[in-house]
């Protein structure tokens, strides 16, 4: 049987409670959930689901330092599962139409007020790649590995998602 889990080292004794995880990470989890869902109620539900799952699987957390990334993964998985239940599977991989991606770049600071609206326009796979890159700070390679897509696909999605935001976030009037 293939087991890819790391075996705990003899001195890898960690004692972390769900209360501690909530205390330390609930705000950033909520912010990430909001960027994923675009709605405060959905974000709170998703955040709660994340911590309930983490609570059940707490014994799998081997390093306290990895807690935030572990929680982010649980959050993203729960979000995708939620999306799949609401829509047919084939809509998850909707591509961003090429005509939506303008070629010119904006050199002005963008209007943050409409950021979430523009994020909501992105297909989930693009939005997740964007958030993994900008919110979590993951590399292209890490995103490709965790989402099980080709590196080129990640780069393409990020490029097009970023271009979509740049051309649609109105520059602040001088």
């Amino acid at each position, binding site marked *: 049987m293939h087991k890819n889990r790391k075996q705990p080292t003899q001195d890898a*004794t*960690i*004692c972390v409670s769900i*209360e501690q995880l909530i205390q330390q990470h*609930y705000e950033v989890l*909520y*912010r990430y959930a909001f960027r994923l869902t675009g709605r405060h109620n959905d974000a709170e539900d998703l955040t709660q689901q994340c911590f309930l799952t983490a609570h*059940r699987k707490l*014994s799998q957390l081997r390093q306290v330092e990895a807690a935030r990334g572990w929680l982010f993964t649980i959050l993203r998985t729960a979000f995708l599962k939620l999306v799949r239940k609401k829509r047919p599977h084939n809509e998850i991989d909707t591509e961003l139409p090429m005509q939506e991606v303008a070629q010119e770049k904006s050199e002005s600071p963008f209007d943050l007020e409409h950021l979430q609206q523009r994020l909501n326009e992105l297909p989930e796979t693009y939005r997740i790649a964007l958030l993994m890159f*900008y919110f979590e700070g993951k590399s292209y390679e890490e995103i490709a590995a965790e989402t099980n897509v080709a590196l080129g696909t990640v780069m393409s999605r990020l490029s097009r998602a970023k271009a979509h935001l740049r051309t649609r976030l109105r520059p602040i009037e001088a």
Partner: protein
Amino acid sequence: MNRFDPAHQTDDAFDDELAAALHEVDVPSGLRARLLDAVVDSEANSGVTNRPAADCHDSVRLSRRRWLSGGIAAAIGGLGLWGSYRWASRSLTEEEVWSEVSESLLSSDWKAFNRDVGPPYPFPRSMMRHSGWQARPTAIDNGTVAFNLTRAGVPAVLFVIRTGRSAKLPTLRQAKPMVQTGAAARDWNHTAIWRDESASYLYVLAYDGRREDFDRFFVGRTVPLA
């Protein structure tokens, strides 16, 4: 793009601004307390206490509210090392079985099974005697194997969960599996669950479509899996 190119610098500036902007979200007041309450409520409903990380010798941290809420089987096993509940001595409750299936579904550790080696847990032969069932193992996560199951073109998923504990569930030789539908089926529209005679495996058939299609998985047998 040359990093000293003004366009590149503008690109970097956009990246920095976007990264910062994504974190600018107001967090609702009272969220932390609500999240803690949700955890306490889930423990009260499931009877499962907070399981600390493995090898944690610092006992389970329990809040005063958790004791006051009552109905929590905190006395099970006492304080101290809990370890994986799957290998504890008491029988799995139905709640724990569903929790295990939900965990498997939400796991980030699913791996495609190795076709050269095959799935570690076999598809039960007695289930293969169901007319028209076709199964193909697709993924492995720690203690669970997922099979894509079809009957007459209707797809479902069968989870085969390795467990060392018994469970108060119908066996493969009994008349009907335990069927849940709607909210009781957790993440699915319909589920059916059995255990094998040796209590080594749990089987959960999960289906998201219509009830009449789900029922057809069991058509044609008075004793479905004998």
